[in-house]
């Protein structure tokens, strides 16, 4: 998932604190029936199908349901709007039995017609109800544009999905926040405005979105699943990490995500707070432009990897929530290769490799720093400074370069305008395809590693329904990546969430979004 959120470090602290004092009484009081969450940024849009960022998904997950959904704090699947499902032996047809008696928040009945209506909207670029959306998850992440051919209504409570080719990860992909079922009535009435007034079947119904401030949702009394324990959810956008933490300590919010690593121990010592660690499903890495000298030489890339003291960086700058990454997928994901040890810190070896590559005096380059903090690089600036300092010790003179705008940074890296840059990925499904195909697949724009064998292997693994074969392929890819060093893995993290001690039942999900119907505020 491309986290296009701006977790700016700007001096907005005072403004945020001021805003906290201006909140209407109903929100500011800890009534016990309102769950107030502090998010690093406000949502981009609340139409899940056209959303790519975690901050929007955090909210749409409460308002919408999928056919299949992730269970608690895992990426195991549970029945959602579909009660059960079956797959044809050739893997080309899926049948879903739908839950009956469910209605959208606007009273529209949920049935097979509604499901087909949503799929038609996602798959057909000429559909009139798309509201100008580009639906990136349908094409770029799930690859459904090539896989799903059509959706048929079998009867009022059964749908059939027909595929062009088998996809082993289809059910996992259907649980992505992007494939949540929206109310056809509400969408047809106002396809553009829907992203500001979403209507789904979820445990909470949308109340209001105050731009730049908060989104308010109330409990859906008619929810088909577990009834929400709080009456109201308020998600407030507080961009500054330190300010958000202060607002939490003051008791104006109940929970927050995106803490400065050094605030985590403070929170752990504070008895009025609790730290909840999100299960790790991410990787932070250093990327290089392999089409440019000197990074076209594998010895230079190996020297870069050997020069960086990754254990020291993770130890010092991740506040105890990081582990050194040996490969580009975390250990919990299928295909993680136990034989891949990852680059070892060895500055002498790095100098020797540089000499072998014909660069005994090192070289000069630019190192681009991420302008926002993300779970895999919680404080990008000091991490980048530490890496650049390590590189300098073996003669690689990297100048720190900074882009101020996150969108520009992502765009320029997609156009391979940077020689060296930092980035990462948080998994959406827990499947290795969601990592490795996104990194090295044939359509990955920021991939400068032109290895057709690996691209073919990733395509093959995507099609294969055989889990053992897929695991072997991903393990193979991980060992090739270790040898060729197209990217340097740095760390996996367990991103910390900090809550007040009276928050119960929060299931932090590795995909970085979770359902709030289980949350209570005591």
């Amino acid at each position: 998932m491309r986290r296009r959120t701006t977790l700016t470090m700007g001096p907005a602290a005072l403004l945020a604190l001021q805003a906290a004092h201006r909140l209407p009484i109903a929100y500011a009081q800890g009534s016990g029936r309102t769950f107030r969450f502090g998010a690093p940024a406000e949502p981009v849009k609340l139409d899940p199908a056209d959303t790519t960022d975690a901050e929007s998904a955090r909210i749409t997950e409460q308002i919408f349901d999928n056919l299949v959904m992730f269970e608690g704090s895992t990426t195991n699947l549970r029945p959602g709007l579909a009660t059960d499902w079956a797959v044809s032996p050739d893997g080309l047809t899926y049948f879903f039995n739908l839950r009956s008696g469910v209605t959208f928040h606007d009273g529209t009945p949920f049935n097979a017609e509604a499901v087909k209506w949503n799929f038609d909207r996602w798959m057909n670029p000429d559909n009139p109800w798309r509201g100008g959306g580009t639906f990136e998850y349908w094409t770029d992440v799930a690859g459904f544009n090539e896989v799903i051919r059509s959706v048929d209504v079998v009867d009022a409570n059964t749908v059939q999905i027909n595929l062009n080719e088998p996809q082993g990860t289809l059910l996992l992909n259907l649980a992505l926040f992007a494939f949540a079922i929206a109310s056809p009535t509400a969408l047809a009435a106002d396809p553009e405005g829907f992203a500001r007034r979403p209507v789904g079947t979820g445990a909470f119904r949308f109340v209001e979105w105050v731009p730049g401030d908060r989104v308010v949702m109330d409990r859906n009394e008619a929810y088909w699943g577990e009834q929400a324990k709080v009456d109201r959810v308020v998600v407030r956008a507080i961009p500054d990490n330190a300010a958000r933490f202060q607002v939490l300590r003051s008791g104006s919010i109940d929970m927050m995500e995106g803490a400065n690593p050094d605030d985590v121990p403070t929170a752990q010592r504070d008895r009025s707070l609790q730290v909840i660690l999100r299960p790790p499903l991410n990787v932070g890495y250093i990327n290089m432009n392999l089409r440019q000298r000197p990074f076209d030489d594998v010895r230079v890339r190996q020297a870069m990897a050997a020069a960086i003291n990754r254990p020291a960086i993770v130890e010092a700058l991740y506040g105890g929530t990081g582990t050194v990454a040996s490969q580009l997928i975390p250990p919990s994901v299928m295909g993680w290769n136990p034989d891949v040890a990852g680059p070892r810190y060895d500055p002498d070896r790095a100098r020797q490799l540089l000499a072998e590559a014909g660069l005994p005096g090192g070289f000069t380059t630019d190192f681009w720093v991420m302008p926002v903090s993300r779970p895999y690089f919680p404080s990008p600036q000091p991490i980048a400074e530490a890496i650049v300092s390590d590189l300098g010790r073996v003669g690689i003179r990297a100048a720190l370069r900074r882009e101020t705008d996150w969108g520009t940074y992502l765009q320029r890296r997609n156009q391979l305008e940077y020689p060296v840059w930092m980035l990462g990925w948080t998994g959406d499904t827990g499947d290795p395809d969601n990592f490795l195909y996104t990194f090295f697949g044939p359509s990955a724009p920021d991939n400068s590693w032109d290895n057709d064998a690996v691209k073919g292997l990733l395509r093959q693994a995507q099609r294969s329904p055989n889990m053992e074969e897929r695991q072997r392929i991903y393990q193979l890819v991980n060992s090739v990546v270790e040898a060729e060093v197209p990217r340097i893995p740095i760390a996996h993290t367990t991103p910390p969430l900090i809550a007040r001690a009276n928050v119960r039942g929060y299931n932090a999900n590795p995909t970085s979004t979770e359902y709030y119907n289980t949350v209570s505020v005591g």
Partner: protein
Amino acid sequence: MNSELAAAARTGQLPVVAPALPVPVRPLRGPLTDALRRLRRDRAAIAGLLIILLMALLAVGAPLITRQDPIEQTLVNRLKPPSSAHLFGTDNLGRDVFARVLYGGRISLRVGLVAVALGVGLGTLVGLLAGYAGRVADSVISRLMEVLLAFPSTLLAIAIVAARGPGLENTMLAIGIIGVPVYARLTRASVLALKERDYVVAARCTGASGARILFRHILPNSLTPLIVQSTLGVATAIIEAAALGFLGLGAQPPTPEWGLMLTDARNFLLNAPWAMIFPGGAIMLTVLGFNLFGDGLRDALDPQMRP
């Protein structure tokens, strides 16, 4: 003699000889000596001067005062409180804050001086031109300067740095440029007041060129307000440079610049206040020094301004 005087009185012609009487005269003293005397009596100004000298000494002598490298990182030593090994403690990346504050002084003082020199240089030229060249040039230049002054100065500096790219050189340039209208207006005002003075008119009558009149006769006599303003200007420049550094637009890491150090340290304000207090204190002290000294200079050089 008496008869001559009487005769002169009668004819109405006074003698051209001056009376050779011993008149009590005040000891001869130039305006500079006068000003220095006044300055010496101003305790606040002396304190300001001492602060400036102290900060300059610490900055210049940094390598002699500390053996620590301001850039060298030791991650295991991060966020250590002040101790005998690290007088001001260590920062987020385990760098010695004392060394960084000392070396940071070099940068801040350099930025202050270079930026002010740039602003005074350009501003004076522009002001001389506006004041002396006549109506059209004056109107154009004055309006232009007013437009520049209408921008909040930090905003203008941010715009210049954003256009030219972050960095120390561009910081100095930006701060220099935002100072131009201030010095230009001061110079222009002096020129307008001075150019009708008798000695200027006399010089013009003797056929002196415009440049000669401007640089030999007018400029030296309009230096006083410029000196005062540029001393205060150094203080402003140091603050502006720190602000740009704080916003990530000025000096770039790992440069030990005071504003940049504040940005790095602000996330650790509760856990490691020393990483923020010392560079913040250094900015405050240096700026205080220049402000006190500048105020004292104004009082000393411009007696009319005194109450």
